[in-house]
């Protein structure tokens, strides 16, 4: 392995400074106490922003965007379906990266973020699958088909479920975290498959409407509220992840003095 490590340190020397230097913010972020205090300050603002953006996007998309020439009003499910599917996949990356940071740096907080991300991602994946089925019946003529896109999305749901199950499969938090992190990392391979499935195979599901490299194949009056909804879902995801992580911090750090003080202060003792 030594040749590999030499090659590696040469390639990444720029991004891997010594710990004494500029990595301090990173380690501070890793302290549950610091994160709990800070996130408590962010939370009201983030929640307010999420609420405003989601409300704007929903009213705009459901009431003011024009209907589709072919699908009529049923296309409006896109304002939930696409953002949920987006965040189901982004959330998986967040979970896997948190797992990787936990494995490498043994940072407590990152394992907590990983654990918190799993149920949120699972719910978002379910929402994407469910809204897709509801839309599929009137549009395609079937609730469910086993094409590459829908099947790979179902596998994503199972991966989330696997990470959640592994959390409860071990008595030791450390063993549970390691096992979940490994599954989460292996599962990342599925994300590009979901993304590219509609290009690699003939599928019933249509190809992507929003592309990074070209204009969306959607009228601007319909696309703008969708963009607002996607931003809103990201904000909402941030709120949900912070809330879940704070919960996990309190649960795992319940024996520390700072959590006891916090609880006593809340209880008025």
């Amino acid at each position, binding site marked *: *392995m030594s040749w*590999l*490590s030499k090659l*590696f*340190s040469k390639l990444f020397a720029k991004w*891997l400074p*010594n*710990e004494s230097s500029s990595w301090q913010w990173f380690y501070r972020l890793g302290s549950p106490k610091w994160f709990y205090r800070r996130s408590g300050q962010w939370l009201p603002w983030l929640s307010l922003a999420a609420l405003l953006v989601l409300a704007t996007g929903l009213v705009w998309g459901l009431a003011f965007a*024009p*209907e*589709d*020439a*072919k*699908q009529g009003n049923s*296309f409006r499910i*896109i304002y939930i379906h696409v953002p949920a599917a987006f965040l189901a996949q982004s959330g998986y990356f967040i979970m896997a990266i948190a797992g*990787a940071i936990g*494995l*490498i*740096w043994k940072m407590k907080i990152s394992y907590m973020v990983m654990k918190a991300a799993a149920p949120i991602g699972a719910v978002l994946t379910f929402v994407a699958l469910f809204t897709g089925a509801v839309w599929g019946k*009137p*549009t*395609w*003529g*079937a609730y469910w*088909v*086993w*094409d*590459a896109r829908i099947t790979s999305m179902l596998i994503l749901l199972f991966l989330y479920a696997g990470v959640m199950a592994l959390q409860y499969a071990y008595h030791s938090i450390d063993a549970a975290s390691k096992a979940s992190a*490994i599954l989460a*990392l*292996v599962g*990342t*391979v*599925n994300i590009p*498959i979901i993304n590219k*499935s509609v290009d*690699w*195979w*003939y*599928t*019933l599901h*249509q*190809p*992507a*409407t929003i592309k990074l490299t070209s204009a969306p*194949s*959607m*009228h601007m*009056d*319909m696309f703008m509220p969708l963009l607002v909804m996607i931003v809103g879902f990201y904000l909402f995801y941030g709120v949900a992840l912070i809330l879940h992580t704070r919960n996990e911090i309190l649960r795992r750090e319940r024996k520390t003095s700072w959590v006891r003080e916090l609880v006593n202060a809340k209880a008025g003792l």
Partner: protein
Amino acid sequence: MHPLRKQRLQLVILLVASAALVIGLVIYMLRENGNFFYTPAQIISGEAPQNTFLRAGGMVVDASVLRSEDSLWVQFKITDGVEMLTIEHTGILPDLFAEGEAAIASGKVDENLVLQATQILAKHDEKYTPPEVADAMNEAYKQKEAAKTGSYK
């Protein structure tokens, strides 16, 4: 970076890379089998499996839809731009089924190379347009076509 952490980082990268390699090989093996439907060209050339249940997908050919007057029987042709395949079906078609739109039929191909479908699905494209814009585009297209043939009044 601490040598221990560096080693663990390498292990993580190795894990993801080997998982990607394994899944990549599986997908490479599955290539064709991952397809939801066959194209008319694949079916006519005999590339698709014969005498078995399959799905065929393509664009519904303009003016090819024939309906029975006293039953739900319908016949139409789909094309992939290379070959055409005739499809027969008895049942209700999805709302978005239309000439010039994509459809997927599942069933068996009989000896006359006609697919006797048990289910028809409409395939939607990734484009979304408000009705007025769609009308305007259709109108502009018609005018252009008419100007080409010189029959526009």
